[in-house]
């Protein structure tokens, strides 16, 4: 075995070259990204309810404006609101409008209704497909833990055509602070006389397991035979999770569809013109799906606290989503905004300012 220097030297050289290449590659990579035009990176987050549509908007807008990279995190309405208050989010998504107390503590926030949708009651029962009939009272009793089996008399009475199994009901609800919960519980409070848990982004659920986000509910529901949960229409439809027909104000069992949900929002539109935060659940009307809601983008009126390029990007993006962006809604099963609601949204967006000058 030779101790000649050449072996040692070439080994050190080898290591050295590899190290230099690694460092150089790293530096080149890094500086190249610095030298290129700095993208406007917008960080947003909030409701999971409109996440499929917002996700699509972000992607399409980036194709039109490659320098604008928006990341929207589906963390729930509550976390979205908190993120906006802390200004870690440049704008937030929330199905639940801000309460008066929140508006007092955090003044100067605009509500921009950007879309709406239906909240469906979905279930996982072997051999039972979509279309089970449910009323507000029965739903209330299920989620309060008063009805515990699928073949309970109250459910069987309104579903004479179905053979319901002797299976325990497993309630799946949101563990995080959720605008979808807010819409669902507002509906139950409005439409049912037996609902006692009130309404809000969280309530004191006596039973059930918590899942995080609409997607968490979808996921957990698929894993849990006997499960029942409330989630946004697209999530249920896309995963082929069966969901119920709900009785509306007119006494009809209505299946959630784009038509029935759009019908509800169309009927509700005038309410928003007087109060953008109005509750629109359980609207009267023929063929209207009663658990339909609008959802909002929350953004500060005065965007002077962020760099000007970013403020402009935010304003332009939000203007785009209520106009051109609406063409992507229906393919993802979200209804287009009624034109009167677009007017309300435009009026609010025009209040965006930067250093005193309007952005739009």
């Amino acid at each position, binding site marked *: 075995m030779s101790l000649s220097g050449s072996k040692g030297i070439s080994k050190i050289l080898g290591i050295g070259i590899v190290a230099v290449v690694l460092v150089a590659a790293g530096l080149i990579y*890094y500086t190249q*990204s610095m030298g290129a035009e700095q993208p406007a990176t917008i960080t947003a987050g909030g409701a999971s309810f409109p996440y499929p549509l917002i*996700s699509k908007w972000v992607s399409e807008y980036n194709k039109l404006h490659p320098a604008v990279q928006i990341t929207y995190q589906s963390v729930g309405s509550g976390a979205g609101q908190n993120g906006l208050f802390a200004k*870690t989010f440049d704008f937030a998504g929330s199905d639940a409008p801000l309460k008066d107390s929140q508006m007092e503590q955090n003044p100067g926030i605009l509500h921009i209704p950007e879309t709406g949708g239906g909240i469906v009651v979905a279930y996982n029962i072997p051999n039972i497909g979509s279309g089970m009939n449910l009323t507000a009272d029965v739903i209330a009793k299920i989620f309060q833990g008063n009805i515990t089996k699928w073949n309970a008399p109250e459910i069987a009475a309104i579903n004479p055509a179905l053979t319901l199994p002797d299976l325990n009901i497993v309630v799946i609800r949101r563990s995080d602070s959720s605008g979808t919960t807010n819409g669902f519980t507002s509906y139950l409070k409005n439409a049912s006389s037996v609902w006692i848990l009130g309404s809000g982004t969280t309530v004191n659920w006596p039973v059930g397991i918590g899942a995080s986000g609409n997607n968490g509910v979808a*996921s*957990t529901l698929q894993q849990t035979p006997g499960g029942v949960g409330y989630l946004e229409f*697209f999530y249920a439809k896309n995963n082929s999770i069966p969901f119920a027909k709900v009785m509306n104000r007119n006494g009809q069992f209505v299946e959630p569809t784009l038509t029935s949900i759009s019908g509800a929002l169309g009927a509700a539109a005038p309410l928003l013109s007087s109060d953008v935060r109005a509750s629109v659940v359980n609207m009267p009307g023929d063929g209207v799906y009663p658990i339909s809601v609008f959802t909002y983008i929350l953004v500060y009126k005065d965007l002077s606290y962020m760099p000007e390029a970013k403020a402009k990007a935010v304003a332009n993006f939000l203007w785009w989503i209520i106009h051109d962006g609406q063409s992507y809604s229906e393919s*993802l099963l979200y209804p287009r905004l009624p034109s009167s609601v677009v007017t309300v949204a435009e009026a609010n967006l025009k209040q965006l300012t930067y250093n005193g000058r309007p952005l739009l």
Partner: protein
Amino acid sequence: MIVSRRTKEKLIIAALVALTGAAVAPLFWIIGSIVWNGISVMSLEFLTSLPAPFGSSGGGIGNAILGTLIINLFASGLGIPLGILTGIYLAEYAHDSRMGSTVRTIVESLSGVPSLVIGLFAFTLIVLSFRHYTGVAATLALGIMMIPLVAKATEESMRVVSDDLREAGMALGIPKYNITTRIVLSMAKGGVISGSLLAFARISGETAPLLFTALFSFYWPTGIDQPMATLQVLIYNYAISGFADWVAKAWGASLLLVLLVITINVAVRYLGRKKYEGA
């Protein structure tokens, strides 16, 4: 009823085989599931394009593959040199000294720290201080995780080198640092390389530290200081997303990840065997 010792022996063998089966069945089950579910997603588009938005099909995981490679490379740049140097210290310079045994204890303790906690450390040090999710924190966390693995491999392979060589070197008047690097280290080189490769494979699978450092991204990586997509985090996010298309992609990404990790391990095994055959 007296059971003969022979019968007892046969029953015991049956039980042992059953237990062995229970131990190894998961491997085949897991790999089977991954191949079964992941193959159908594989395509060139899957490997090279950006993710499609939530709710739409198509797109791919190109940015996650690139992100994993980038973060691993940077982490190796931190972890491998520190690991090798520390291993050299432990093997050659740490005999019978208080500092030596302290270092050894701490390196061992470090290997027992859960990856989540190391990620938490990087989170508190960098992300919280700068209020910004960044790949740098991920690099730090993964790099720290590599150190004990590489150090241990280095130390062990250097220890195996016979002292005769060191003494021969000293007798010839070769300085200690030369003995260490040119003689001992070059003999230990196989073990060091295996250790580094195994450490690389190990961090490729680590997800927890990335969840709140590099976070995730739907775009191509723009810089190590930004959030970045990685295979591991993609698998986690997509698997729990409840969205069928994403779950399918998670299986595909899992297939890639398992291929990467198994390939490295097989390569290390093969290198090791070759070494023995060659000697």
